[in-house]
Structure formats: C-alpha cells, structure tokens
C-alpha cells in the first residue's frame, strides 16, 4: 500500500503546487497593478 500512497500523495502535491504557483503569480500581478496605480 506504500506505493499506492506515494503515487496518490505525489499527484496531490503536484496539483497543489500548480495551484499555489497560480496564486503566487496572481499576487504578483496584483502587486504590480498597485505599483502602477501608485498605491502603497
């Protein structure tokens, strides 16, 4: 069952990692948009 758990956990980690990278890129966009508007 160790192989099965490893496979499922790695798939979950890859999906979570991609979702996290999307959020990080979105935060960066929001920060750049604020900088452009001159907001703190």
């Amino acid at each position: 069952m160790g192989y099965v758990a490893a496979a499922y956990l790695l798939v979950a980690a890859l999906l979570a990692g991609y979702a996290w990278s999307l959020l990080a890129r979105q935060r960066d966009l929001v920060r750049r948009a604020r900088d452009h508007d001159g907001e703190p």
Partner: protein
Amino acid sequence: MRGRLLWLALPAVMLPVGAYLGLVVAPVEAFQGDPYRILYVHVPSVVTSYAAFAVAFVASALFLARRRPQFDRLAFASAELGELFLTMVLITGPIWGKPVWGAWWTWDARLTTALILWFIFGAYLMVRNWSGARGARVAAVIAVVGVLDIPLIHWSAVLLRTLHPRPTVFRAAGPDLPASFLYVLLFNIAAFLLTYAVLLSLRIRQQRQREALAELEMA
C-alpha cells in the same frame, strides 16, 4: 458569481471523492493486489495530458494560420497543463511498475516515447516563457510537431513488444475492464478533465491580465 464559485469548487470535491473511490470502494485486483489502484490516477493523468496537448496542437495550428493572440494564450496555458499531467504520468507509472514489473523504469517504446513528449513540451515551455511573444511562433511549431508523438505513444504498446500493457479502456473493441473498475476509472477521468478545464480557464484569464498590465506599464 455563484456559478463561478461552484465551477471552482467542483474539482476540489470530485478529486477527493475519486481518490476515495479508487482507494476504498473499488475492489482489489486478483493478480496485482493493491498496487493496481495507481490505475485510478495514472490513466486519468494520461487522458488529461493527451487532451491538453491536443488542445495545444489545435490552438497552435490556428495561431500559425491566423496570428491571433487568443490562440497563443490557449496553446500556452494548455501546454503548461499538459506538461503538468504528463509529469504525473511519468511519476505514477514507475511507482506502479516497481511492485508489478520489479523495475522502476525500462527503456521500452511506450515509456521512451512518453518521456520524449515530456522533453518536447519542456522545450516548448522554455521557448514560450523565455522569449515572450517573439517566441510564440517557434513554440507553436514545436507544439504542432510535438503532438505527433502521441499516436506513436499509443500505438507503440499495440504494434511493438513492450513491457507496458496494451490499452484496456481506449481500444477499438471497447473497454476490457469489469464494470466495478470501469465506473471508478471513468469518474476519476471526469474529475481530472474538469480540473484541467478549471485550471485552464484560470490560467488564460491570468495571462490576459498579465498582457493588459504589461501594456499599461509600457504606456
């Protein structure tokens, strides 16, 4: 707004339910035992990566023909997700292979052509990320040529002698799986495809925002 939230929440519900069905509800396979349960993440990842690369292929061909940025945006986002799901394939495959074949990896036709596809779209993403809009045309050519590897991957297990089993679901004579396995597999395929669709829509929207912001910053 409500519909949008529901759309985003669907994969978050379907993926854990699919994992529960694959790990707990689906019966144990007689020959392989529990390791066969990797099927429920391996095959959906394969199907989703093929679908994503097929979308990237069509969008890239349209971009080359018409030069409209929305096709490039769609191809870029879909290729990125295709690479993500293909990475899952290349990770779950060896983890399944070790207990069943006794080896993590073997250089047979199926596995090697799949690895080549991963490198081709890795090259696509490098070109597209590092040379910006200027590299879009080169990247589109890579995507169009690269997708031709998918039929090779599929037919390699049918026409050549490989360690990898022949297709049991997507074959001309219909699926060769008991219903109790097939329904769980189809549910997981639907969950993975839906996850791809949601992530694709978010990634395209983000890319559009990035381009709009870059134009504002240039002005």
